[in-house]
C-alpha cells in the first residue's frame, strides 16, 4: 500500500505539467513501515537526460520528450534532505507526456540499480495535452524482471 500524504499528489501533477512536453522526474521522501510506503514530500529533480547517458546507441534519436535520467548527484542531494528531516528516499516519479501511465520496457531497464522486492515505489504521472491525468504506482519484483501495480491512496 502506497499512501500519499499532504500535497504530494498535487506537487507531482504540477511538476509534470510544468515540464510538459518533456518528461519530468523526481524523488519521493517518506517512510517505509512494513508493507506501507508513506510519501510525505517530493524532491523535484532536473531531467538530465542527454544522448551520452543513453542505454542504447539509438538513443541519439531521442530527446527529453521521451527520455529521462535522474542523476545520482540529485539522488544524493535528496537523500541528504530526507535524512535531515528523519525521512528516507522511498521512491521516484516521472511523467509520461501524452502516453498511458504504465511503465515502459525502458523504464524497467533504467530501474536496475534499484533493488527489486522492496517497498521502493515508482510513480508514473500521465499528462494529456499539457494537463495532468492519471497517477499510478508500481513496485519492482522478480529480481527486476517486471513491475507490478500497487494500491495507492
Amino acid at each position, binding site marked *: 500500500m502506497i499512501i500519499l500524504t499532504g500535497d504530494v499528489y498535487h506537487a507531482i501533477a504540477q511538476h509534470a505539467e510544468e515540464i510538459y512536453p518533456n518528461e519530468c522526474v523526481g524523488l519521493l521522501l517518506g517512510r517505509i513501515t512494513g508493507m506501507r510506503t508513506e510519501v510525505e514530500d517530493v524532491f523535484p529533480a532536473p531531467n538530465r537526460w542527454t544522448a551520452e547517458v543513453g542505454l542504447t546507441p539509438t538513443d541519439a534519436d531521442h530527446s527529453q520528450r521521451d527520455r529521462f535520467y535522474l542523476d*545520482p548527484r540529485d539522488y544524493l542531494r535528496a537523500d541528504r534532505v530526507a535524512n535531515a528531516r528523519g525521512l528516507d528516499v522511498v521512491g521516484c516519479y516521472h511523467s*509520461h507526456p501524452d502516453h498511458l501511465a504504465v*511503465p515502459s520496457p525502458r523504464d524497467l531497464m*533504467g530501474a536496475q540499480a*534499484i533493488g527489486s522486492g522492496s517497498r521502493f515505489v515508482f510513480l508514473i504521472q500521465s499528462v494529456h495535452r499539457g494537463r495532468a491525468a492519471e497517477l499510478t504506482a508500481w513496485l519492482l519484483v522478480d529480481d527486476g524482471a517486471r513491475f507490478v501495480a500497487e494500491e495507492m491512496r
Partner: protein
Amino acid sequence: MPVTVTIPTALRQYAGGHASITLPAGSAGQILATLREQYPQLGKQLYNDQGALRSFVNVYVGDEDIRHLQGVETPVADGETVSIIPAIAGGVLDGAR
C-alpha cells in the same frame, strides 16, 4: 573513527536492513570488497557477473563519484562517508504513444 557506508533504501533488505554500515578506512575498493564479503546478497545487486559495478550503480566518496577520483584506488579516510547511489532512467518507447 571508521568509515560510514550508506545503503540506498531499496538495497537495505540485502544489507541486514541497515541504512549505513561502519567499516575500517582503506581504499574504496577495499571497503567495497569488505562490504561484499559481509553481505554477499548486496554484492550481487551491486556487481554484474563480470565483477564490474553495474551501470547505474554509483559509488561516491563525500560529494564525488569515485569514477572521477581514483576509482577503486580512491583513499577513504576515517570519518569520511562512502555513498552507494543509484541512477534511474527510462522513457516511453518509439511508436508506443
